[in-house]
């Protein structure tokens, strides 16, 4: 990271004011807000570091200014490069970078809604979090916004992108759907059955988690982080723990690191098996669907046996895990995993030999490599579109450094590739759990954590079942959290979904949607 810092400082001597190294893999550069577009474009295109997160922070208590952070992933050096610019209260605008870096478009809209910082030059500044019912001049994530006061909602007309032409019409779907799923409004512009454009309006379950965490104790925020999204409890709390552990400077015991790998992979296994079942169900292949559901239930039983909670809550603690969940259960665990592997092997064989099934999934919902790169598609959809990137390899954390595993890669970007990635990752997860159990050293599972210093910050980055998961924590006074920025993989992949469905027919949308498996709760926060 020092070499990177040197290079950038040499290139932009006037515009980089300050560099801060935080641990071995985080570099923060304070840059001139006028030149942000130039520097961001250089980092993104010349250095090949994609924008992975972008957020604002109300730092008026510290230096009377707002700060905007642009986070880039330097995958080769396993580092995160963060550019920080200051925005004064009088100004309240930033230069939009989304014309050069398309992935920034959603982040800029989010910042505008929650902080009131206007990105100048943004081509489509529609409200993201609110749906035309939030009054002007109220910005929830500013420190002076009082959550106890009731906000009087207003009613503005909702606007959607209009596609005009002969025979083109709109299909509004949701936010309430026929099945028991989360809310989201989809507006299809179609000509007959083929989809010309899809606009997804989400954030119906915006709960204000980031605001809720501000001022809460760091222990309580762990509790909240487990509840961001039901099926990602473990990975979200792990990312939070990593960030806080880095700030505190505690060394997690090796055994705890292995136990964390076991749970993280168990969560991935259940999530992928559930997806595969859902994909089968969406093409009305009942046999496959119930095979995968049965296997997922077995995986849930393992989770239940290990920690008494199928959704893996209350496993993580700051500095380790709550107790030694694995001891004494190794044999039964390996036995049950082998049972799942045998069944999975058979089912995957039947599935891949089913020509009608393959016909449905092949070339359906193609996410091209170019769009995947532009929008920074992560996780299985990214890996199915030729992005050879997995946080476990590029930013090894916990015991992944010591364990041997492969990441799958497919290039066609269709539903079939996503199915294959998920099947391969299921096998990989089973192997990883077994290897982790066998390689696990004896020892304690938790290190006591001290109180945290105020205004320190760090990233926590994990590979969630859905992809790269980046959390940023800044501590406040008295062991509290000052700012907690959560960026789940779903936030990156939702726009990718909207591109992948173009040109497909309406009845194929549920299948494509299922193959992306995006979380609403994890996106809406």
């Amino acid at each position, binding site marked *: 990271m020092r070499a990177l810092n040197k290079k950038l400082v040499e290139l932009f001597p006037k515009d980089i004011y300050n560099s801060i190294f935080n641990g071995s893999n985080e570099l923060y550069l304070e840059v001139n807000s006028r030149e942000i577009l130039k520097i961001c474009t250089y980092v993104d295109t010349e250095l090949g570091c994609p924008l992975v997160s972008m957020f604002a922070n109300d730092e008026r208590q510290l230096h009377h200014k707002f700060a905007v952070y642009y986070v880039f992933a330097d995958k080769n050096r396993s580092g995160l490069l963060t550019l920080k610019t200051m925005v004064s209260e009088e100004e309240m605008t930033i230069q939009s970078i989304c014309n050069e870096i398309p992935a920034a478009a959603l982040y800029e809209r989010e910042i505008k809604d929650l902080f009131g910082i206007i990105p100048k030059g943004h081509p489509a500044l529609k409200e993201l979090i609110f749906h035309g019912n939030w009054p002007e001049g109220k910005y929830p994530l500013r420190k002076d916004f009082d959550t106890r006061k009731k906000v009087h909602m207003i009613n503005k007309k909702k606007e959607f992108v209009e596609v005009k032409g002969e025979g083109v019409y709109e299909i509004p779907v949701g936010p309430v759907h026929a099945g028991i799923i989360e809310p989201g409004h989809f507006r299809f512009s179609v000509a007959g059955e083929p989809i010309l454009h899809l606009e997804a309006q989400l954030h119906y379950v915006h709960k204000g988690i980031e605001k809720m965490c501000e001022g809460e104790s760091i222990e309580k925020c762990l509790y909240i982080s487990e509840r961001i999204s039901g099926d990602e409890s473990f990975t979200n709390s792990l990312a939070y723990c990593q960030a806080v552990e880095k700030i505190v400077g505690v060394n997690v015991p090796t055994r705890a690191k292995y136990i964390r790998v076991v749970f993280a992979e168990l969560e991935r296994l259940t999530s992928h098996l559930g997806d595969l079942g859902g994909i089968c169900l*969406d093409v009305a292949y009942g046999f496959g669907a119930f095979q995968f559901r049965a296997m997922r239930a077995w995986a849930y039983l393992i989770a239940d046996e290990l920690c008494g909670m199928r959704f893996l809550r209350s496993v993580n603690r700051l500095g380790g895990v709550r107790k030694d969940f694995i001891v004494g259960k190794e044999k039964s665990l390996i036995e049950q995993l082998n049972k799942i592997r045998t069944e999975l092997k058979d089912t995957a064989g039947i599935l891949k030999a089913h020509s009608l099934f393959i016909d449905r999934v092949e070339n359906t919902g193609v996410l091209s490599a170019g769009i995947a790169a532009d929008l920074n598609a992560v996780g299985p959809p990214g890996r199915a579109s030729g992005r050879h990137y997995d946080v476990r390899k590029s930013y090894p954390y916990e015991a992944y450094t010591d364990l041997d595993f492969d990441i799958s890669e497919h290039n066609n970007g269709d539903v079939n590739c996503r199915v294959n990635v998920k099947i391969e990752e299921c096998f990989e997860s089973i192997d990883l759990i077994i290897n982790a159990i066998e390689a696990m050293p004896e020892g304690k599972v938790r290190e006591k954590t001290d109180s945290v210093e105020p205004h320190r910050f760090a990233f926590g980055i994990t590979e969630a079942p859905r992809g790269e998961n980046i959390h940023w924590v800044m501590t406040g006074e008295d062991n509290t959290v000052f700012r907690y920025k959560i960026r789940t993989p779903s936030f990156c992949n939702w726009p990718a979904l909207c591109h992948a469905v173009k040109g497909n027919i309406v009845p194929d949308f549920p299948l494509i949607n299922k193959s992306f498996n995006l979380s609403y709760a994890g996106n809406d926060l």
Partner: protein
Amino acid sequence: MQYAAYVLIQLLVIIMLAPLLDGIIRKIKAFSQKRTGIPLLQVYYDLLKLLRKTSVVSEESTWVYKIAPYIVFSTSIAAALLVPVTTKIMPGTLPGDIILLISILGLGRFFTMLAALDTASMFGGMGSSREAMVSILIEPSVLVSLFMVGLISKSTSLPQIMQAMKGIGAPLTYPVFVMIFLAFLIIIIAESSRIPVDDPSTHLELTMVHEAMMLEYSGRHLAIMELGAMIKQLVLITLLVNILIPHDQLIAVTGIGALVVSIFIYVAKVITVTIIIAIAEVCTVKLRFFSIPNLATLSFILLFLGFLQYFILGGSNV
């Protein structure tokens, strides 16, 4: 007198048997998925429960929406009366023939589609347009298959066709009828909205065909609509088994005993075909919507091959 007895037996058998077929298909699917599944008679309980409930009717809808269930039900019943379940009790002549049968079923479908459009809900419109597409694609096969049978038996009246088939004995030993049998199986699957054309158990409103049109219906209206659809499915199966697998010539006993035996054999034949449909449902997945023409083409090609075989190669043997 005989007329009244015929109508009574027809209605009793068809209405009582129709929901059972859905129960059987669901049970077989459940077994393929290692589940016990719902009880065989659950479909009946569901219908009775729905019949007792009030219907919620959209304020935006017109009279079309309200009368559609009754029209769908009555057309199904009318169609059922045209297709005898047994030749053991049958009036000498039945009014109407296969052309009327197809038209009556078409009328029911027309009102289902109108009612779905009437509510102005997005999914109703989508369901209607898809149903129209599927029915247009499958209609030629329906007509050709029935006309071929009519051509061979030199009549379009169903009782006379059935008599002629009885004369042939075992039609399925002739290639032309095997082709018609297979083509008609595809027709039944498409007409009764089953996998691979449609998925009757899906909750995904964007993929639905038949279900999308039913989406707005509730309570009594829904029960009548669903029963109407089940009866239609049974009428088509009856048409298939009673034309291509005639059984009344095998029964030795006479009088009321023959009638009972005949109905039992009929039920057994229907259940066999239902099991074949269920197995087809288990083994296939829902086709991509624009692949449905391929299925319709397959059915038509089968008929065409049968047609060629009959007229060019060995027609006179039949």
